[in-house]
């Protein structure tokens, strides 16, 4: 269940261009978080909380790792926090990835930019359950690449950059035809990427994680709806998502 928590910053590091990795300590959230969920962070001086995916969990040390990009004033301010500071957080928030593994052999993870983080905790968890994992990670350029070796520890990992400054040049979709067979895909990244993927892989079972500007982050304000094929016609990204079956949402 979602709860208001204080998380102590254990460490904070810039690991790629404008990209910060923060390790946060909190027993409740580390205990309860599942892959695909997010935490909703209050940044001083800001009215609305910032949703950031859970990129990794270490239950033994009771830590949660997040990775975020400095984009606007909120993430900029957040990046100025130091180890030892506390964050005011709601979490774990939202519904995570479908991780029932019955009949599952190989999965494909497709992460784009700041959509890569949630793929990490997911892939690591699936690999632990002996699922064969393939990862395709897309970044803007060499300077933006992060976590490649970490993904390699549990998966065959393809890296593409838009400008070709690292790995293959192009988009994640250009690599997918070459990765071989898989039973299910998971993806998180910018909307155009998700649109392309869900189109291309419309025959496959897939789960995607969506982004939208949020008000409450708990399902009360209807700021974050996405049209769906379901009876109600919509779902809320903050509470029904951010993860959806690729087939149920209308992008």
């Amino acid at each position, binding site marked *: 269940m979602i709860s*208001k928590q204080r998380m102590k910053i254990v460490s904070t590091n810039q690991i790629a261009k404008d990209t910060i990795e923060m390790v946060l300590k909190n027993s409740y959230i580390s205990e309860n978080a599942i892959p695909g969920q997010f935490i909703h962070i209050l940044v001083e001086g800001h*009215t609305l*909380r910032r949703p950031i995916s859970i990129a990794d969990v270490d239950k033994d040390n009771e830590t949660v790792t997040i990775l975020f990009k400095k984009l606007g004033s909120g993430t900029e301010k957040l990046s100025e926090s130091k180890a030892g500071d506390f964050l005011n957080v709601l979490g774990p928030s939202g519904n995570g990835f479908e991780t029932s593994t019955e009949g599952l052999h190989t999965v494909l993870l497709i992460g784009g930019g700041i959509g890569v983080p949630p793929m990490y905790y997911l892939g690591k968890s699936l690999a632990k359950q002996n699922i064969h994992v393939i990862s395709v990670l897309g970044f803007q350029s060499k300077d933006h690449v992060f976590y490649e070796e970490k993904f390699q520890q549990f998966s065959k990992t393809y890296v593409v950059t838009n400008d070709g400054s690292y790995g293959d040049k192009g988009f994640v979709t250009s690599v997918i035809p070459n990765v071989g067979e898989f039973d299910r895909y998971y993806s998180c990244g910018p909307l155009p990427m998700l649109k392309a993927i869900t189109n291309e892989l419309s025959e496959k079972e897939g789960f995607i994680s969506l982004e939208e500007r949020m*008000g*409450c982050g708990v399902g*009360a304000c209807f*700021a*974050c709806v996405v049209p769906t094929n379901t009876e109600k016609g919509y779902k809320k990204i903050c509470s029904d998502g951010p993860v959806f079956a690729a087939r149920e949402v209308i992008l």
Partner: protein
Amino acid sequence: MSLLQVNLPGLHLKNPIMPASGCFGFGREYSQFYDLSKLGAVIMKAATGSERFGNPTPRVAETASGMLNAIGLQNPGVEKIIENEVTFLSQYDTSIIANVAGSTIEEYEYVARTFNNTKAVHALELNISCPNVKEGGIQFGTDPKMAAKVTEIVKKASNLPVYVKLSPNVTDIVAMAKAVESAGADGLSMINTLTGMQINLASKRPIIANKTGGLSGVAIKPIAIRMIYEVKQHVHIPIIGMGGIRSAEDVLEFLLAGASAVAVGTANFSNPLICSDIIDELPRALERYGFNAVEDAIGKAVMNE
């Protein structure tokens, strides 16, 4: 009488704190954080005659000390609200206020009548100030005559006390207040949001898909206080105050300006426990500023005139 208690038409509130309409859904989500029986009342999200999907996204944006929203009255319609949401809220020992919206006078009437037929709702908040609602090009919320007309019709359609929610997007808030008072309103609820816009520099377009949105949050508090203070001098019906409240001291400021109770909106998003926290803090705040009870503070600044 207890320190925090307030009596308003149809509402015997154990304390003057309620979540504002649209910022608390129908309470389910926030019931994870605290016991809703603690609240003076709950103002539900707007109800319309039938289901509405609302505006395209993005529906919210952040502004300095505030936010914009253009949800567009998304709701399952009055029947489903009664069936699912009022039933849910009725398990708590708190008053339920239904926010009534519509695009036509007939829709307002229908929603009001439908709520009247359920015993569980204690009062109506008549939302004439939703920026997306017009009839014949005129907004109910900005024309005193239209506001009076819809108030009258809703009063006839229902036995419940009606609190008319005023829009701050007007030249003369006192004229609006007087018009709905004459039309039979039992109380006022003010203020709704101010129409605003934010433009994304990269896309060169408004951030909110609907282009304009309603500005709420502490940024608008001085406007809310001014309007309540002005209106309090000219009407006799009680006012539920709102606009940027995020602390017990803010509540006192609204009481002093003339509000008899308050609603907390945007602050729920920063702190889902805000209403509960304020209720805990309010007795200390009253004491700090020399009040024996909430009732003592109401309108004090106006009386000091």
